């Protein structure tokens, strides 16, 4: 038995995979916040925003908000991504400013101005991070669109390039 484990590759592969899965499980149990083994990742991203107390809008709702003009759209992506295309009228506040300070970028904005923050797509967390930071600064009417610009384009939302 031991001899065959040493000579053949497939018992080795099985053994290594079994050890790996066990190690992954043990490490996960030891995490401060264990990750779910089977959970919808998309829903998790939306939950993160909800848990942070930020309103979540779908791309359809965002389109309605754009037509009514009730919200200022804020693009949290980098300036070069913003330049290639963004939601018409959006203001670019790159989330990278979180590292250096947001004060200048948001100084001209009223704290109670309704805003909608977005970034690249469901896998991008920049808009949520920016929203959390702005909420801490006292902004009261923030919303995020977790599906981001990808979700926006998927529902045929208009784009503007600059």
């Amino acid at each position, binding site marked *: 038995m031991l001899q065959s*484990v*040493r*000579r*053949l*590759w*497939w*018992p*080795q*592969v*099985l*053994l*290594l*995979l079994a*050890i*790996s*899965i066990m*190690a*992954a*499980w043990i*490490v*996960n149990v030891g*995490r401060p916040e264990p*990750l*779910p*083994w*089977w*959970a*919808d*990742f*998309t829903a998790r991203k939306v939950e993160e925003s909800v848990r942070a107390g930020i309103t979540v809008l779908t791309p359809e709702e965002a389109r309605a908000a754009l037509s009514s003009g009730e919200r200022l759209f804020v693009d949290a992506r980098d300036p070069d991504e913003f330049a290639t295309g963004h939601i018409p009228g959006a203001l670019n506040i790159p989330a990278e400013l979180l590292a250096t300070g947001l004060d200048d970028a948001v100084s001209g904005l009223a704290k109670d101005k309704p805003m909608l923050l977005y970034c*690249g*797509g*469901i*896998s991008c*967390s920049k808009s949520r991070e920016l929203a959390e930071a702005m909420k801490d600064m006292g902004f009261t009417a923030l919303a995020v669109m977790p599906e981001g610009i990808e979700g926006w384009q998927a529902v045929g939302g208009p784009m503007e390039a600059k």
Partner: protein
Amino acid sequence: MIRSVWLVSRLLFGAVFVYSGVAKMIDASDFATVIFNYQILPARMVYGAAMVISSVELICGLALCAGVLIRGAALVLNTLMVIFLGAMGLAIARGLDVSCGCFGGAGQAVTWQTLLRDALILAIGLVAAWGAFAKDGKDEEEI
């Protein structure tokens, strides 16, 4: 001579995976985001895949460095490497703007350079596997 080449490539290949496995394990949530971004796996499997892949990298990397179960470890890691290369190639072909996630974290974007670097790592891995299989089962005693 060829034995030292095998040994060096095995240690190097193993060390690369120990490093990247640990980095991905620490940032498993970020790594899950990276996997999700590649749009290959269903959204429900993303967390599980992130945890298992990082763990497989670490365990098999350690096995290669320690010289235990090296045939299995070399096979698993080379297979993983081919999957990574395929995923990156697919991402480039589909024009996805994804971060490579190669050594954990989300910094580097997938480009031809990351593809080339991974191809080089695969080449080292293949040499390591050649060494593991060439020694007719006497690997552990000889090194």
